C-alpha cells in the first residue's frame, strides 16, 4: 500500500488528496510528517504542497458539498486525530460519488465525519468562551490557550470582529504558535519566550490588570447561589482541564 506524506498543512493535505486521485490509488493512506512512523508495509511518497492542486480539490468539493459538509471536512482535519486523513479521504470519496452523501448519517464514515467536526466545533466554541485576556504593559491583550484540537485558525474571525479596537494575541502553548491582531489584520506568529505566566505578573502586565482580575473573581463568587450548589453540573460545563486559563478558577 502507498502512504502519502504531507507537510502537516491544510493545502498539503488537499494536495495529497489530489495526488491520490491523479495516481488512481485505490488504497492509500495519508499521513502528516508530524506523526510519521517508518514502516516496511508502505511505499512512502512525499507530497509537495501545491496551492493550485489544493484549490482544485476544494473547488471540486464545493460543487458537491454544502457549507456544513465543507466545514465538516475542514474541522475534522483540524482535529489532528490519528488517521483522520484516511478517514477524510474516504469521506471525500463518498461525497464525490454520491449526491448529498454528507447527510447519509446511516453510513458510519459520514456519521463519524459529522461527529469529529462537532467535537472540533465544540472546542472552538469553548475557546471563544474561555480565552482570558490579560493586558500587557505594551497594550496588548494576551491570552494563552492549550486546546485539544488545532482551533486557532477558526477562531480568527470571531475575535477579529469582536475586538476590532484593541491589539490582541491568542497563543497556543501546545502547538507553539499564536494569532496576533495589530489593529489592521491578523497574522500567525511564533514567539520565543520564557513563559509569561512563570514570571512576576506585575512585570509584564499593566497595573490595572490585577484590579480587574480581583473584581472578576469577586463577581464570580457573588453571582453564585449557594443554596443551589451543583458541582457535578458545574464540572460538566467547565471541565477541569480548562481551569488553567480561567482567572475565576485560579487560586
Amino acid at each position, binding site marked *: 500500500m502507498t502512504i502519502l506524506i504531507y507537510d502537516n498543512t491544510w493545502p498539503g493535505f488537499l494536495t495529497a488528496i489530489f495526488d491520490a486521485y491523479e495516481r488512481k490509488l485505490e488504497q492509500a493512506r495519508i499521513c502528516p510528517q508530524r506523526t510519521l512512523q517508518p514502516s516496511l508495509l508502505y511505499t512512502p511518497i512525499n507530497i509537495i504542497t501545491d496551492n493550485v492542486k489544493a484549490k482544485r480539490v476544494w473547488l471540486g468539493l464545493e460543487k458537491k458539498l454544502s457549507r456544513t459538509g465543507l466545514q465538516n471536512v475542514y474541522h475534522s482535519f483540524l482535529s489532528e486525530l490519528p488517521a483522520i486523513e484516511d478517514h477524510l479521504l474516504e469521506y471525500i470519496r463518498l461525497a464525490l460519488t454520491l449526491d*448529498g*452523501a454528507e*447527510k*447519509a*448519517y*446511516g*453510513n*458510519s464514515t459520514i*456519521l463519524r465525519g459529522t461527529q469529529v467536526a462537532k467535537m472540533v466545533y465544540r472546542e472552538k*466554541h469553548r475557546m*471563544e*468562551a*474561555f*480565552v*482570558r*485576556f*490579560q*493586558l500587557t504593559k505594551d497594550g496588548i*491583550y494576551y*491570552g494563552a490557550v492549550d486546546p485539544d484540537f488545532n482551533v486557532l485558525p477558526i477562531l480568527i474571525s470571531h475575535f477579529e*470582529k*469582536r*475586538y*476590532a*479596537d*484593541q491589539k490582541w494575541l491568542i497563543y497556543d502553548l501546545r502547538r507553539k504558535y499564536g494569532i496576533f491582531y495589530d*489593529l489592521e489584520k491578523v497574522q500567525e506568529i511564533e514567539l520565543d519566550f520564557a513563559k509569561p505566566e512563570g514570571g512576576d505578573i506585575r512585570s509584564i502586565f499593566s497595573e*490595572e490588570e490585577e*484590579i*480587574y482580575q*480581583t*473584581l*472578576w473573581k*469577586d*463577581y*464570580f463568587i*457573588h*453571582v*453564585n*447561589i*449557594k*443554596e*443551589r*450548589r*451543583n*458541582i*457535578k*453540573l*458545574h464540572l*460538566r*460545563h*467547565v471541565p477541569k482541564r480548562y481551569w488553567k486559563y*480561567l*482567572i*475565576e*478558577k485560579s487560586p
Partner: protein
Amino acid sequence: MSERIREKLKILADAAKYDVSCSSSGSTRKNKNKGLGDTGNGICHTYTEDGRCVSLLKILLTNFCIYDCAYCVTRKSNDIKRTAFTVQEVVDLTINFYRRNYIEGLFLSSGIFKDADYTMERLVRVAKKLRSEHNFNGYIHLKSIPGASDELMKEAGLYADRLSVNIEIPTEQGLKLLAPDKDRKDMIQPMNFLKNEIILRESENKTFRNAPLFAPAGQSSQMIIGAAQESDKDIMFTANSLYKNFNLKRVYYSGYVPVSNDNRLPGLNTSVPRIRENRLYQTDWLMRFYGFQVKEIVNQEHPNLDLDIDPKLSWALRNVQQFPIDINRADLHLILRVPGIGIQSARKIVDARRFQRLNWEHLKKLGVALNRAKYFIICNSRNYERRDLSGSQIKQYILSGAQSKALSAVAIQLQLF
C-alpha cells in the same frame, strides 16, 4: 478606591443573582466602525458552582428600593447593606470585563429609588454612554421599570438589545398577596408598549436600510416558581399567553430561593424546587420547538407536571393509542413527539432515511435514547415492542430500567438554561 468598588460589586451582584435570565443571543448588532464588541449566538464564558451560565455582567445599579415585595432580598423592610453604583462605574466595569473576554455584555437591573422614571433614566444613561461614548457593540439587557414613561422606554430600546419586565408571580392573586404595592397592569403595560414599538421598528427597518436598531433581541420575562401556591398549569398558561400576546423571546422560571421568614412564603429551610423548575423548562421547549399546545401538557385533569418523568414522556403515556409510529415514514412533527428523540436526532433521522431504511443500531448512533423511544416506534427491524402495554406499564419498565438515570437526567436537563 478599588476596595469601594469591590464592596459595591459584591453587594450588587449578590442582589441581582436571583434573576436567572442570562441569554446574550438573538441580537443582530454588529461591530461598527472598528469599535468594541459584536453580538451573535451568545456565549457562556463560565459557569457558577450552581451550574448556571455566566454570560453577562449581571448587577443592580442600586439595591435601595421603595417597595417591599415579600419574595425579594432587596425589599425595603429587609435589614441589609445598601449601596449604589455611579453610571461611570458600571460603564468602566462593563468595558474592562468585556475587553478581557469575561462577558458578552451587561444585564442591568435596579431596585426602585425615588420613582420609576428616576430609576429608568439612570439605567438608560448607562446604556447610552456605552453605545455613544465607547462605541460598544456588545450585548445590553436592561430591565424596564414598570411605570416608567413611554419616552424613556423608547430611549431604552434604542440602546439595549433586550428589555425585560418580570411578571414575578405567575398568578394575580399571588402577586396581590406577596407584593401588595404592585399591580399586574403596570407590568403588562410596558410589555405591550414595547411589543408594539418593536413591531413598528421592524417594519421601518425593512423600509429604510439605516433605521436604528430597536431592542433587536426582543423582550423576556421571569416568573418565580413556588413562592405563591400556583400550579404548573397556572405557570405554563401564563407563559403561553406572554409568548402569544407580547411576542416574548423567552420566559424564565426561577425556583424560589427562600430569603425571608415571612409566613406568606415557604420557610427559610425549604429547598429550591429544582426538578419542578426543570420540568417547566422542558414544557416551555415542547411549546416552542416541538409543536405542542400548552393544554396537551398541562390541563384540568393534569394541572401539575410529573416529577419522575419528563413532560413529553408523560404526554406520550397518556396517549399511547397514537403510537407506534414508523421512523422510516412518519413526518418530522410526529417524530418530534416521540419520547427520547430530540430535535437534532429527529432532523438527522429525516435526512438519513432518504439513503437507507434505518434500524435500531442506526437510531442509537444518531443519539436516540432507545430505552424510552423503543416503546413508541417501529423501524427497519423485526424486533419491536409487540405487547400491548398500557401507559403505566411502560412507565414502570422505563423507570425500573433506568432508576438512577431518571434522576441524574434531571441534571442534564438543567443545560436548558
